[in-house]
């Protein structure tokens, strides 16, 4: 099959409109241009050098923001119950927002908060393509959008719905909704397909399109979901959820305008945005130390052999997820240079501008977003150089954006790690941690006995990451998700009734599963399932920021061990169903392994997947087990305090054997209480420190040996460096400089 073009495509020309929805005599296109010019000229949103309303009557101003914010929050809390997808109902994997007419976010609900950065791309697309004239915007119109290049959504799984808010014949803003839907119809059943060679195998994509009017979706759109996705019931209800919430927002904003006055409303929505920009500037000025950071993450993707029909995509990769932060404490700005990011290629792990706008802001919010109102404003103090042709800025729109979050989260965690490091240097220890939150997702399709199928994405480990370690505190398990600060794993029962044939036999915190340090990141989770004969088979895939095969990040601000990968274990033809008939269920990986050793659990074959995998077919009697979502360490493990170790032992976060192996602490149990043998511990720690000193060699010796081995690197590693050196002059220069290649005694590292 012929390769899609790699040529750059021509930028889209703006279609001039003649609409009347803009303010005063302006078209919406006029308003977009005016916003850009005033913002650039005055370095304030819309040129607002003074926050007049905020200064004149701060209480009224706060009331206005609270009312607008509450419109979005109430929409989420109520509308989520319209949905049937556990992602929406249980995880709250959704977002509602109030936007300006130009598409800039004024206020958002809790939930998938990063999407406030990407919403403007859809609105801008509609305005620049003359939608103001054709089809026009009227109250009750429904526009839905899920095509990454045109809508800003990172991938089709994140679906946007916009409804214009019209008052006295003018567009005063938009109600916006986003949620992560159950399944998107790609070549391999998924919401985040890890295998998709180009945009045409990404599934059902839709540029911003009117799909309803008078607050009612058109039936053809539901038909399209039925025909083009594998989870139409859930997807349709999600659409209804988004529309319901938008209607609530629309009505509430109209009330707010009538209470505060139209002129007040028009000005306050802009002041609220610039207020956040100012707060962000102050945060960067107050909390950071200026400098440059270079954190990095690596992630493997194995595609060779999966796509012989797509010769150009029939290969493997290791992605180089490498941002360079330039932190300008004085001006209160951060500039990111992505000059060493891997090039775009024919796989699903890349994306478009919307992914950057969305993912980046999550880490901006976590690092320097303290105390401010999340909206368009805080984006304004961060800018970036994203080379054309890199994996989040491909030259044209033929590239897949099926699964950008897998590589994206570690990439932007690496950005955030630099900011955390800067805050640590400045002394805000309460605000600085390792920034290495990971995620794991599970998806696929269930084939019923009658041959009918349903697709799904299962989000246990999407809403339950551990928190990172800091210099004085361990992370905690099952606590958080960047992208959704108020998330949850979802009730086991909810997932079970939605996914017939796949049932849990365990779901617990996994002992010893973290990156060690003086303080360790939160433990990850282990989840085990069995397949029953209620179904014919299940085709399953694993994705995620943590399914890197390497570690979640290469190194951490805390200097401890980075978190290990998320792993899928598959056991085929087991006797699990007989054991369950006898009411026996293994409690976790350790017990599973014991049962295997004792031959209590039998199986025909076993597979292990550290990396992302697209489609593993499982039959009744098979079982699968996955681990994920732990974080890395801070500091030297040999410094871990007894108080923290005792806490871990008591909660079964760590085993006694691991405590000795990692921390040199010898323990015993007396009357149910853990005790440290102080003398044995001192001896053990001294021995381990001496061993460490003996094993470590001078860096210069290591460097000289390693330099000689550069001609003998593993094939995929060599190919990775070759690709990077060809695409990025900066990487080539740095690689050559660090290995002193092209000097008198060095080669060029190419042999």
């Amino acid at each position: 099959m012929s390769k899609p073009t790699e040529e750059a495509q021509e930028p889209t020309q703006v279609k001039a409109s003649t609409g009347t929805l803009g303010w005063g005599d302006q078209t919406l296109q006029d308003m977009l241009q005016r916003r850009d010019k005033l913002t650039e000229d005055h370095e304030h949103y819309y040129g607002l050098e003074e926050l007049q309303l905020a200064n004149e009557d701060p209480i009224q101003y706060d009331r206005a923001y609270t009312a607008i914010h509450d419109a979005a929050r109430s929409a989420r809390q109520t509308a989520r119950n319209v949905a049937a997808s556990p992602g929406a109902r249980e995880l709250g994997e959704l977002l509602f927002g109030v936007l300006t007419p130009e598409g800039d976010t004024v206020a958002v609900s809790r939930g998938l908060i990063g999407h406030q950065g990407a919403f403007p791309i859809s609105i801008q697309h509609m305005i620049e393509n003359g939608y103001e004239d054709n089809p026009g915007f009227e109250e009750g119109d429904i526009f839905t959008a899920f095509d990454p290049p045109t809508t800003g959504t990172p991938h089709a799984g994140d679906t946007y719905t916009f409804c214009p808010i019209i008052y006295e014949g003018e567009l005063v803003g938009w109600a916006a909704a986003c949620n992560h839907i159950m399944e998107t119809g790609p070549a391999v059943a998924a919401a985040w397909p890890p295998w998709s060679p180009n945009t045409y195998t990404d599934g059902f994509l839709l540029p911003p399109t009117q799909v309803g009017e008078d607050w009612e979706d058109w039936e053809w759109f539901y038909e399209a979901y039925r025909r083009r996705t594998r989870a139409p019931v859930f997807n349709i209800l999600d659409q209804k959820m988004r529309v319901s919430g938008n209607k609530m927002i629309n009505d509430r904003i109209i009330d707010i305008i009538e209470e505060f006055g139209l002129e007040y409303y028009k000005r306050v929505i802009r002041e609220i945005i610039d207020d956040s920009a100012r707060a962000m500037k102050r945060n960067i000025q107050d909390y950071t130390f200026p400098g440059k950071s270079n954190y990095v993450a690596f992630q493997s993707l194995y595609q060779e052999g999966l796509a012989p029909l797509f010769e150009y995509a029939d290969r493997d990769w290791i992605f180089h997820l490498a941002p360079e932060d330039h932190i300008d404490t004085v001006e209160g700005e951060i500039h990111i240079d992505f000059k060493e990011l891997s090039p775009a290629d024919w796989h699903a792990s890349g994306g478009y501008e919307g992914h950057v706008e969305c993912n980046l802001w999550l880490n901006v919010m976590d690092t320097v977003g303290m105390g401010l109102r999340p909206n368009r404003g805080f984006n304004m103090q961060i800018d970036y150089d994203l080379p054309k042709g890199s994996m989040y800025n491909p030259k044209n729109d033929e590239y897949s954006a099926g699964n950008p979050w897998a590589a994206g989260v570690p990439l932007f965690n690496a950005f955030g790690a630099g900011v955390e490091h800067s805050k640590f240097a400045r002394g805000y220890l309460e605000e600085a941690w390792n920034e290495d939150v990971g995620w794991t997702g599970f998806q696929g399709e269930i084939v019923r006995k009658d041959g009918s199928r349903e697709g799904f994405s299962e989000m246990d480990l999407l809403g339950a990451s551990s928190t990172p370690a800091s210099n004085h505190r361990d992370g905690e398990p099952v606590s958080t998700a960047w992208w959704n600060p108020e998330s949850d794993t979802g009730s086991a029962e909810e997932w079970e009734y939605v996914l017939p044939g796949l049932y849990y036999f365990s779901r617990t915190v996994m002992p010893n599963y973290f990156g060690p340090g003086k303080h360790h990141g939160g433990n990850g989770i282990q989840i085990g399932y069995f397949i029953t004969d209620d179904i014919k088979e299940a085709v399953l895939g694993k994705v995620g920021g943590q399914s890197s095969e390497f570690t979640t990040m290469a190194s951490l601000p805390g200097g401890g061990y980075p978190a290990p990968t998320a792993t899928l274990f598959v056991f085929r033809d087991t006797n699990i169903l007989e054991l369950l008939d006898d009411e026996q269920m293994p409690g976790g990986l350790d017990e599973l392994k014991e049962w295997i050793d004792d031959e209590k659990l039998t199986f025909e074959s076993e597979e292990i997947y550290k990396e992302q995998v697209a489609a593993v077919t499982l039959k009744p009697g098979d079982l699968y087990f996955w681990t994920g979502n732990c974080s890395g360490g801070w500091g030297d493990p040999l410094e871990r305090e007894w108080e923290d170790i005792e806490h871990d032992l008591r909660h079964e976060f760590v085993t006694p054997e691991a405590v000795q192996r990692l921390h040199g602490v010898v323990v015993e149990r007396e009357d149910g209480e853990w005790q440290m043998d102080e003398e044995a511990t001192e001896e053990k720690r001294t021995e381990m420190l001496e061993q460490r000193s003996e094993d470590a060699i001078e860096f210069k010796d290591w460097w000289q040996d390693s330099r000689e081995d550069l001609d003998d690197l593993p094939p995929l590693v060599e190919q990775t460096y070759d690709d990077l050196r060809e695409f990025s002059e900066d990487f080539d220069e740095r690689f050559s400089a660090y290995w002193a290649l092209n000097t008198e005694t060095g080669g060029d590292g190419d042999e």
Partner: protein
Amino acid sequence: MSDAAQEQSEQEVSVEIVRRLEEGDLTWDEEFDLLDKEKADPNRFGKYVEVLENKVEFDDDILVRLNQYLYVAHPEDGERVVKCGKCGHDFGDYRVNWKIKAKVNSRNTTEEFSEIYTYEEVTPPADKAEMREYVCPDCATLLSVEVVPEGYPPIFEFLPDIDTFYEDVLEEPLPDADVEEWYQDRTPEVLAEWSD
């Protein structure tokens, strides 16, 4: 006390709290109070340096903390070096990645990775990855860990712009200030010498 002074006083965090924060002795409620403050604690950097200078095993002024155990010390004007807070080991000029002056233990096998991660099924790929443990040449404290594909250049995680901070943020320029001279990565120069 004026309103502004009152507000300032409520926002201020004492040196003792900063010390206890560094030592890990704050309760969660106490730490939450810090996180809950409306504004950044003014002069936190000065208090932080005071706490750190009382803690480390060397007497020089601290210009900035580089990581959990390493600091940029200022023994005298014209000299800015990385020092180990645990034992005072001198790694040399801070513009050169301290890692190349450390000792390193390299792990490459599944068995070696499993000593850290317990379950071999979650370890990095032994056919491609290398774990580098950087330790202090004197006290053997584990300073930093990298897990990278073989052959990846050592990572230089953070290069602070010290003079911009002292001059433009603290408004107390250092006697040997020179942004252009100090704010640069000189690691390749040293490595080039090693290849000769």
